[in-house]
């Protein structure tokens, strides 16, 4: 217990050094970074969520039912949902038409998260009622992903394909549920000493630029503790030349296009001048 307290003090000190920690009833969390910059050599990144709970105790795998131990504070669970900037998406399915394969079905999604990650310290259905999970979109199967329009009869298949493609790209991740051997399920949140937890939030190279929202839920006795979720944000930004070029391509397209032309004309003249002397 004393050991735990010492770790807790250290952890709190560490949290103070990180970004501004966020505090709600019984829950303190912080992110390792608030801004992730995309520079020329960006190949993906990772953000770490740290947190501590007070008055409750987090479950440690394999330690749930051990007799002859001093009584512990009431058990609580944590669920984390990370969502990236919203986007519209069109998913299409190819089918055979005559001799060739072409797009034959499509579904249009409006305002879906470009990035999504969910993690929890226990099976979701054991720690919160299903409608609360649906309301808050905790876990991929509780995330509202309804197409605004779709080829008749294809909506469900296309939704699953969307989740599949996003998962493959590392943009959708579901780490909730009990640990399943050989998968990432239940492996997300790392717990130490019943009160401290951390979660690695991986950002793949094609994670979209924008504001990411990290929500931390505290669950106790089958309900979400009312003072949660605790919400924090981090920003994925292009930096340096990438940011400059992207900004102008979007806001000054005429100028950007002319610059692209001038650049190539100069390159052409430069090349012919350079190689004439050789």
């Amino acid at each position, binding site marked *: 217990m004393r050991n735990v307290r010492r770790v807790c003090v250290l952890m709190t000190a560490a949290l103070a050094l990180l970004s501004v920690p966020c505090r709600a009833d019984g829950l303190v969390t912080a992110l390792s970074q608030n801004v992730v910059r995309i520079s020329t050599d960006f190949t993906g990144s990772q953000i770490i969520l740290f947190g501590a709970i007070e008055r409750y105790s987090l479950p440690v795998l394999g330690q749930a039912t051990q007799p002859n131990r001093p009584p512990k504070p009431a058990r609580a669970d944590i669920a984390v949902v990370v969502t990236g900037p919203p986007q519209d998406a069109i998913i299409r399915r190819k089918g055979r038409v005559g001799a060739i394969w072409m797009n034959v079905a499509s579904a249009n999604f409006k305002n879906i998260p470009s990035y999504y990650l969910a993690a929890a310290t226990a099976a979701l259905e054991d720690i919160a009622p299903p409608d609360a999970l649906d309301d808050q979109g905790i876990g991929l199967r509780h995330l509202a992903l309804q197409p605004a329009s779709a080829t008749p009869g294809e909506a469900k298949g296309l939704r699953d394909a969307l989740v599949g493609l996003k998962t493959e790209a590392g943009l959708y991740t579901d780490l909730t549920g009990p640990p399943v051997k050989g998968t990432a399920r239940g492996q997300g949140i790392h717990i130490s000493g019943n009160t401290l937890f951390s979660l690695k939030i991986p950002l793949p190279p094609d994670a979209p630029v924008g504001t990411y929202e990290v929500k931390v839920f505290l669950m106790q006795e089958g309900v979400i503790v009312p003072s949660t979720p605790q919400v924090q944000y981090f920003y994925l930004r292009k930096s340096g030349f990438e940011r400059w070029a992207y900004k102008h391509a979007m806001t000054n397209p005429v100028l950007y*296009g002319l610059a692209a032309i001038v650049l190539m004309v100069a390159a052409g003249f430069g090349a012919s001048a350079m190689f004439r002397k050789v």
Partner: protein
Amino acid sequence: MQIYLPIAEMSVNILLILGMGGAVGFLSGLFGVGGGFVLTPLLIFTGIPPTVAVASTANQIIASSVSGVVAHWRRKQVDFKMGGILTAGGIAGALIGILIFKYLERSGQSGLVIALSYVVLLSTVGGLMLYESVGVILRARRGEPSPAPKSGQHLWIHHLPLRMRFRRSRLYISVIGPGVLGFLVGLMTTVMGVGGGFVLVPAMIYLLQMPTSVVIGTSLFQIIFVTASATLLHAVGTKSVDVVLSGLLAVGGVIGAQAGARFGVKLSGEQLRAMLAVIVLVIAIRLAYGLTVQPDEIFSLSTMAVGEP
């Protein structure tokens, strides 16, 4: 070594892109074509979104065409008047092309239409070139003289109204033929991301009957303007010109083009045309095959940040 492309929003291997630019530049130096017809499909195979591949290739072709025109201009092998008319038609074609491109993108069939137009165009041009060049090579082997060039013989397109004198090409023909030809090439540039040299060059020789010496310089001259307007139209219309990508391709392309031009001196015109024809046909066959086989992934996803046009 990875580099992040700001518009494509993905990171790619810098050596791979430089290498592709170099290989295509080599072909363009060797055969006197822009190389867009090889480059665009290659970039799409790499995973670059088709729109970005088309727009950035059009941008990159400007560099290789400018360096080519400079060389031909010094030798007085550019017919600026003819180039001007081709360009006027080309810009009109590029304008219509961007509308078609945006329409296709919305309908979800842009990939199919691009691939199909490539198959039709490449197999036609490749087949004709192969037939012609192999014929010349075989006749040379048998010691027969090649048939006399058909210059001076007038086709019906020359007799349309609005005739004009083209001094450098030594022609007095209607402007409708070159205008329509330029228009079609402009259309191809925005829809397919090709400069159109591989269509323009044979068309100028066989349809307009321009002297071969002026053809390459004039075609490169018009390609500069058409690819420049395609770049601008894509920058405004689809916002998908990636200057990091086109810059890298240009660096590789310029070096490759010089190597290609030096290597090309060792080969005869017919051999070059036969080799180019084979490459063109192989790409056409590969694309046609790709359309008829079940793809590994039948689903495709395109996304757009909320609030963007």
